[in-house]
């Protein structure tokens, strides 16, 4: 069996188990689906009046404006929650059995990443359906919408690799806050409620240098049919995936060294 085929075989097995656990345990499934929905309902429903603030000029309306944030947020947290599952597996000793059984151990990380992606597809499907039922305006073309979801995939893979790197180093669910808090921080220090131009003070300064801002602005450009920062957003997304994949590989070495 070639190296690639070996990695794929391990990844399939790990992903199948992870997805099976996710779909059959309501304690894992419900928060993953409900959290993004409640963020969306709260932001799009409760803050709809923000769309009437002087200077707020988003052609597709506030629901679409917030949909992009919640989509990217659910992408990131889909990765983080998968990191929780990985940490739990290593804490219970199941991860060590994976390490002993897998011919190509990078397939373990790839399997969790595949599971994270499938989990996110489920969440995004429900989120998108709810948003459309709620009357979200989509002005972007089919290509632009595909580009929006491609950005979300990059965010999901980057977040999974970040969380995997932590999980493989800490090998305990106690590493959960370390996976979650920086992700939460970087997401909320971006233009969440209003466009960057309407922010002022310290939050504007931080949001201006936060890479998530470019991802958000590009995503909002796609949904409104007015693409902006496309090159920058994809470059940031790919760079994040590359950097955090290296971070996860380092974690794998750490787990191997720990025995």
């Amino acid at each position, binding site marked *: 069996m070639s190296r690639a085929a070996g990695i794929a075989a391990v990844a399939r097995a790990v992903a199948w188990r992870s997805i099976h656990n996710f779909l059959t345990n309501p304690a894992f499934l419900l928060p993953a689906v409900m959290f993004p929905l409640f963020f969306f309902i*709260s932001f799009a*429903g409760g803050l709809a009046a923000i769309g009437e603030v002087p200077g707020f000029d988003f052609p597709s309306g506030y629901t679409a404006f917030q949909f992009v944030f919640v989509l990217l947020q659910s992408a990131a947290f889909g990765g983080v929650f998968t990191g929780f599952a990985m940490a739990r597996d290593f804490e219970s000793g199941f991860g060590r059995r994976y390490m002993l059984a897998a011919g190509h151990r990078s397939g373990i990380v790839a399997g969790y990443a595949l599971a994270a992606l499938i989990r996110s597809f489920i969440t995004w499907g429900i989120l998108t359906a709810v948003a459309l039922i709620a009357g979200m305006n989509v002005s972007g073309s089919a290509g632009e919408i595909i580009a929006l979801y491609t950005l979300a995939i990059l965010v999901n893979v980057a977040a999974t690799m970040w969380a995997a790197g932590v999980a493989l180093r800490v090998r305990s669910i106690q590493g959960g806050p370390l996976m979650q808090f920086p992700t939460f921080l970087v997401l909320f220090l971006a233009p969440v409620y209003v466009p960057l131009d309407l922010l002022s003070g*310290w939050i504007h300064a931080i949001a201006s240098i936060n890479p998530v801002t470019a991802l958000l602005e590009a995503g909002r450009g796609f949904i409104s049919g007015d693409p902006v920062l496309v090159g920058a957003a994809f470059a940031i997304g790919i760079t994040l995936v590359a950097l955090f994949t290296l971070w996860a590989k380092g974690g794998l070495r750490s787990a191997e060294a720990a025995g």
Partner: protein
Amino acid sequence: MSGSLSIQVGQLARRSVLRTLRQPAQIVPALVFPLFLLAVNASGLQDATELPGFPTDSYLTFVLAVPFIQGALFSVMNSGTDLARDIETGFLNRLALTPLRGAALLSGLLAGSFLLGVVQAAAYLSVGLLAGAELAAGPAGALVILALSVCITVAFGTIGLFAALRFGSGEAVQGLFPVFFVFLFLSSMALPLDLLTTDWFHAIASANPISYLLQAFRSLLIEGWNLGELALGFGIAAAIFTVGMLAATSALKTRLVRT
């Protein structure tokens, strides 16, 4: 209160307070997380004050009410998780062999929530005022804010006790966190009820008691002294406390029969 009951409550209260103080993991997130969201929301949504009918020109003042409720949500987790741990480790079984009264157990366990409530309220109010929030009711209003915050924290703590006694598992108590967050998100957390322009969201937020708890804080911060709003806030806290204690007392009886 009879002498023996006061001794029992005192002993358990001392244990609850010490246990809270010795667990920075309980205190730090309850302080840091709400303050982080306060900082982000106060800056990110400042433009909302330009909406016609917004009650103040400082969004920080408006949103300063929110951390008090978020802090109380942590009280549910902390009080419930502590009691669930006592159940899981068998400590409650040992207490059941003593002449300890149920009322003493529940009251004593709430002492940790009381302490956390005082620390949280003082921290949120101090940081808010230092950051430039207004307090229309003056220094006496600060005392009422502290009192209201502690009442709400203890009231929410009874729900944590009930959940721990009913389910007997820390994980189940932790699972309540998203449920309570939903209540917060579907309230007038981000905008006043009058400015919730989405009909269904306005209807839900109007029926949500959290909206009126927030309004009680806001009346002191923005208006001055509005006895009707305050009475409603304290009344809702008292109602939650009564229902929570009755439910916890009933669950305690069932739990002690089981063990």
